């Protein structure tokens, strides 16, 4: 249990997917303009990330690894994740239309999102057990949400700031993203202190 908590919290804070591993930068910059879109996107990422890990772990450990096909993991994972998202979308549309409406365009956007694929591959690379993989991807999703929420706040502040003309738009966004990222380095060592 303690190990699970360590994995969960290091994925959220220390090894934050967006701010420390630099995965999923595209949606991070794309939808962090306001809190509403950030929320839709991060919930979609969280859900798909956990489900993708739950599917890719058995696919790898029961199908690919025993047959010596580990090198196929990237191709197969993308295939599995893309199909998974498609299936989730179809089911949601029928079963929970309101949720489908709010996740809306974000679901298809994350079919080949590198954060999702990254979570699936990192689970394998770190030789996590099934439950540890779930904890890791849950933490990664929550970390993504945290990063997106913080950055949406920062961005709405930056929007009202008097930015020099050459820094307007993407440059100032990237600079502020870097500053937020640096602030997350403050969490290094936190996990050892908490659980060690």
């Amino acid at each position: 249990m303690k190990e699970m908590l360590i994995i969960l919290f290091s994925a959220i804070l220390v090894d934050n997917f967006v701010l420390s591993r630099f995965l999923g930068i595209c949606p991070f910059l794309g939808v962090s303009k306001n809190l509403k879109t950030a929320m839709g996107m991060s919930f979609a990422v969280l859900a798909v990330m956990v489900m993708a890990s739950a599917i890719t772990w058995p696919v790898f450990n029961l199908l690919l690894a025993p047959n010596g096909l580990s090198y196929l993991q990237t191709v197969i994972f993308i295939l599995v994740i893309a199909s998974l998202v498609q299936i989730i979308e179809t089911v949601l549309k029928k079963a929970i239309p309101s949720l489908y409406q709010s996740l809306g365009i974000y679901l298809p956007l994350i079919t080949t999102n590198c954060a999702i694929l990254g979570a699936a591959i990192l689970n394998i690379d770190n030789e996590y057990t099934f439950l540890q993989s779930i904890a890791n991807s849950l933490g990664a999703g929550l970390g993504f949400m945290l990063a997106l929420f913080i950055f949406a706040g920062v961005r709405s502040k930056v929007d009202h700031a008097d930015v020099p003309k050459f820094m307007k738009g993407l440059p100032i966004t990237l600079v502020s993203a870097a500053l937020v990222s640096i602030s997350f380095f403050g969490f290094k060592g936190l996990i050892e202190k908490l659980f060690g």
Partner: protein
Amino acid sequence: MIINRIVLDSLPQYRQVLQAIVLSNEVSSVWLPVAVGSGIALVLGLIILLTAKFFAVPVDDKLEKIKGILPGANCGACGFTGCEGYARSLAEGDSDTAKCPVGGVATAQELSSFLGLAAPDFTPKVAYMYCNGTTEHTSKRFEYSGTKSCAAAHSLFSGPNSCSYGCLGFGDCLEVCNFDAIYYEKGIIRINADNCTACGLCVKACPKNLISIIPKHKNTYAVQCRNKWPGAQTRKNCSVGCIGCRKCFKACEYGAITMDGPLAVIDHEKCTHCGACISECPTGAIHNGLPSFAGSWPSTGKPEEAVSS
């Protein structure tokens, strides 16, 4: 076999690799990943097919058709979040087809005939700006060098204009207008009634609350002022402001003019467009007609000079 030989001879560096694949006993090592890959793809494809079949949602083509009739401006003037929202409400049995000011009469009629309803009572509307404080009529209290936005200027001592109720002319309304209906003229903005669809976005954008949606009438009479100062202070700060002299109030036989403190307000529903008020106004604050292009707007507001389009 000859072709095979040629390939093998012409590519000596790959000979070993090719031989390993074609000739060795390890042929199965090629087929296993192919089988696994296509197997997974086949299974996933089947699952997608099955879910698509079992979870199919019947598409409401009525909704799609209504969306096609609506202009797709997504301005929100109907009170819904966008055309999609209004279309859904109509598809679910809303019978008010006159809510879209952008599409106007034509859209309302088309919607009614599509939904099998009686033709709606559609009054065209237009956005009207209640300020004529151009640079000729007003002055500046201070030099403003901040962000070029009405909202920002308004938050700094109500802006640089001598009249703190007047148009600031930075064009927050122009920014939000989707229909190219707002133009600058002599330091203020004006609304081109020909292009205006009365979507109401500019009404929300104006920090001075100077724009209202009124019934569209080519002979609209309006007191083009919204200041609440006493007459003397108005006179000092703007030469075309309403000074609250009550002359028009007394001249109106139809009770269309009311006094909101020191400001005369014309009720556009009650106004009969007789023009009795306009000649009474000592400052020329009352105007006739709607502006449609730069220079089309009378500056004096006297009836003989008014544009009657």
